[in-house]
């Protein structure tokens, strides 16, 4: 039971991978566009965890700077994406992604 008591970097990588795949499943399976969007945030967060893990592994702070940048881009993405959902709801009274497939012929 050594793996239970000694935490290596592999533990953090496996946790990040679990969170990332849960995010993928959320994007694939849910219809509610807002929850799809939150799943994308979850995937970004898992990638942040990988960056921080490798920063600690190599003793290099560039990973922290990358996480800072990813957070800023996520904030910008959230602002624009939520504005799109507000506009979508105003026009079609729905946030379900499969009811908004207007570009499909």
């Amino acid at each position: 039971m050594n793996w239970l008591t000694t935490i290596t970097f592999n533990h953090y990588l496996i946790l990040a991978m679990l969170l990332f795949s849960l995010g993928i499943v959320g994007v694939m399976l849910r219809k509610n566009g807002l929850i799809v969007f939150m799943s994308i945030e979850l995937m970004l967060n898992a990638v942040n965890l990988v960056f921080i893990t490798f920063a600690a592994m190599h003793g290099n702070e560039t990973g922290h700077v990358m996480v800072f940048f990813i957070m800023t881009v996520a904030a910008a993405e959230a602002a624009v994406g939520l504005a799109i959902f507000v506009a979508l709801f105003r026009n079609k009274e729905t946030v379900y992604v499969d009811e908004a497939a207007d570009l499909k012929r």
Partner: protein
Amino acid sequence: MEAFVFWVFAILAVIGAGLLIFHKNPVNSALSLIMTLFCTASLFVLLHAGFVAVLQVLVYAGAIMVLFIFVIMMLNLQRESLGLRRNAFKKALAAIIALALGVKMALIMGAQTLPRPELNAWFGSVERVGALLFTEYLLPFEALSVLLLAAIVGAVMVAKTRV
């Protein structure tokens, strides 16, 4: 001690992610995502990334998720039946991706890990990360401010006009 803290926050993070995907009510989904983000912030502290952990709680769990909850409550989404897509192809694709990631996980478990390097006490502090941000990464940093401005203008324009 580190093992105990790691397991508590890792298990809570996975539970929060699962609740995010499989909960009917979008507000509860948002709250469980906040739990996951907070738990990952705690894991950042374990990895000597104090500055990023504080940013995670303030910016991610604070500002961005408040925006999400504002929009969910403004749209006043009713409690729905669990809206899963009834598409066999999508489910098959999800299963294949999960399988591939499982194989990857087995590979990671078998891999050798580097020993923990000796990090000095200032690793990941505001001074060190800030110095890196304002010297080596100054140009991307300034470009990000332009990106944020564009995002603000774009969000206002998209949400304001009736198409």
